[in-house]
């Protein structure tokens, strides 16, 4: 199986001359109050966001959240009604797409079907009037970089999905773009190849550290694996932005907590700050302690966020944050066991290693979690 996968999707090899194959000049992307509307329907509202040079920023969100519109605005395929978009120091808001010096990879590869892999990669270079010797040198270099050197003469229809996407990446990199735009590039691949490609995209960026990448996806795993910073979008608005780890550990609002990873969100009240950025809260009759990362004021109500894998079955002598409930369901997923608890009318999900004797539905169960692994989340805030 491993061999088959390797054959289907050869590993992206790190080129020796990566310095020459990277971005021509390291440039960031800057959205300044960008609003995009189709007729009266606003699809992207007042987006202000910076992608630093050499950084990978992932925009995630459900369908219709405006993430792809933001990417297309950078590419020049939608014109903002308001605001400016800059690549490096240049305001490109009204610059034609062909003059923006960007590389773009899309979900369905969009390879030119009548061209061989090498011709696809050469397309951008030729469009920019690159001399023939530059094309001759650079095309194999880029194909080698994505592990497709042996497939140069193949037509897209003769390549697998993963191989086509590699050619699409090579094509985008061949022109030495200032920024690389990736629009759900792995969505059309099956799960196994997607995981492999994800690792290799991360490896590719390590080899091309100066390449600025805007990565649009609805897959939280891709965002968490690749991105330095993540922007979470909803209904055309950026509802959260931050470095991947902080955003995951301390989501600034309910939507972010639920969209970026799985989360148990319990309504708590009577917030009382303690030392070390912690706070005591009340959940029904239970007193719990959690991190008050967002500095929520004392006395108020909020949500307590604890990830399913942070919950542990309580030994008899456990102390600290404990919750008791009735088991509603148990699911075995191979390398993981999911337990669903009813705690005071709220659903609590626990993810743990497979158990030899899992609890049965209807059984009473007590779980505990570390105060440092739970965080308080404001109920209403849209932007953290």
């Amino acid at each position: 199986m491993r061999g088959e996968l390797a054959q289907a999707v050869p590993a992206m090899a790190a080129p020796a001359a990566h310095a020459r194959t990277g971005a021509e000049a390291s440039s960031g992307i800057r959205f300044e109050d960008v609003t995009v509307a189709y007729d009266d329907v606003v699809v992207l509202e007042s987006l202000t966001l910076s992608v630093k040079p050499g950084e990978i920023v992932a925009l995630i969100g459900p369908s219709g959240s405006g993430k792809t519109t933001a990417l297309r605005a950078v590419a020049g395929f939608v014109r903002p009604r308001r605001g400016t978009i800059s690549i490096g120091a240049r305001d490109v808001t009204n610059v034609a797409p062909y003059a923006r010096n960007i590389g773009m990879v899309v979900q369905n590869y969009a390879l030119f079907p009548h061209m061989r892999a090498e011709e696809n990669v050469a397309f951008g270079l030729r469009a920019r009037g690159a001399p023939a010797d530059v094309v001759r040198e650079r095309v194999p270099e880029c194909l080698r970089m994505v592990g497709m050197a042996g497939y140069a003469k193949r037509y897209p229809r003769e390549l697998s999905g993963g191989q086509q996407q590699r050619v699409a990446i090579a094509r985008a990199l061949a022109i030495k773009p200032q920024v690389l735009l990736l629009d759900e590039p792995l969505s059309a691949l099956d799960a196994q190849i997607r995981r492999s490609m994800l690792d290799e995209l991360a490896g590719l960026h390590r080899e091309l550290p100066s390449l600025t990448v805007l990565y649009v996806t609805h897959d939280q795993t891709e965002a968490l694996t690749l991105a330095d910073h993540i922007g979470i979008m909803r209904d055309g608005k950026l509802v959260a932005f931050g470095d991947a780890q902080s955003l995951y550990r301390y989501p600034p609002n309910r939507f972010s907590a639920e969209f970026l990873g799985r989360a148990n969100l319990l309504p708590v009240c009577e917030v009382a700050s303690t030392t070390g950025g912690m706070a005591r809260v009340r959940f029904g009759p239970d007193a719990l302690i959690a991190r008050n990362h967002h500095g929520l004021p004392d006395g108020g109500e909020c949500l307590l966020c604890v990830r399913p894998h942070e919950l542990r079955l309580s030994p008899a002598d456990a102390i600290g944050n404990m919750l008791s409930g009735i088991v509603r369901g148990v699911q075995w997923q191979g390398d993981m066991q999911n337990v669903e608890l009813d705690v005071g009318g709220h659903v609590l999900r626990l993810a743990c290693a497979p158990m030899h004797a899992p609890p049965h539905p209807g059984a009473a169960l007590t779980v505990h979690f570390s105060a440092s692994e739970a965080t308080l989340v404001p109920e209403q805030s849209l932007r953290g």
Partner: protein
Amino acid sequence: MADLALALPGQGSSGSRSMWVLPPLLILAALFFFPLALIVRQALGGDGAVPSLHHFFEVLGSRMFIDGLRNTLVIALTATAGCLALGFVLSVFIAFTPFPGASIIARLIDTFIALPTFLVALSFTFIYGSAGMLNESLMALMHRDLPPVDFLYSQWGVILSEITVYTPFVLRPLLAAFSLIEPAQLEVASSLGARPLRIVSRIILPAALPALVAGGSLCLLLTVNEFGIVLFIGAKDVITLPLLIYDKAIQQFDYTTACVIAVVNVALSLALYSLYRFVVAYFGGRRAGLV
């Protein structure tokens, strides 16, 4: 139920199954092969005569036939080239330049397929004719006594009419082909630095090639056989093969010559039809997906 009805003939022996081919063959023979055979027989000498190629050599070597064949081919090839050029430009505009009413315009152009061909020639006389709108306006504007635009009653009038009538036959397959091009391909090409003209020549045109060749073959087939437009325009010295057949058969009662020319015309049409079928099979078969 329909499946069952269709399957029933297959229940019997192979002999009884082959009987089902007879009715359509008889109808085809009565409506097509028999009249065609009569034409061929007439071309070879007619009733009672020993079949001979004498008339063929005589007609094929005549100035009249050579001029007719040349006119037919020049008009058909030029009109087809015009249809391809106009059809390509129009379809690119309709398919890739979003504007309100693009689909209505495409449908309006389609309606030309439903109209009799001579209607365009008739309408052109009202527009470009000696006493047409264009000439009347220009004569009034330029204070001239003679019409300044005088192309309608020439080969160019026929070609323009045929282009107008047959462009939809290119436009329709092109629009179908363009609907299969992923917009993302054009966007990616643009992001890679390709300007619109390059995108058209390197991405759109190759994708349109099968439709262009198929539509062009069909246009060529139809323009080679076009009769109504040539007759209606009545252009001086523009005699095509169909018009020559009409002239020989109806006006001069020279059926043998008319039949010889008709046989050549049929051979030419069948050759073009074979080309059309080959092109459709070639691009729709083993090379499907390549372009």
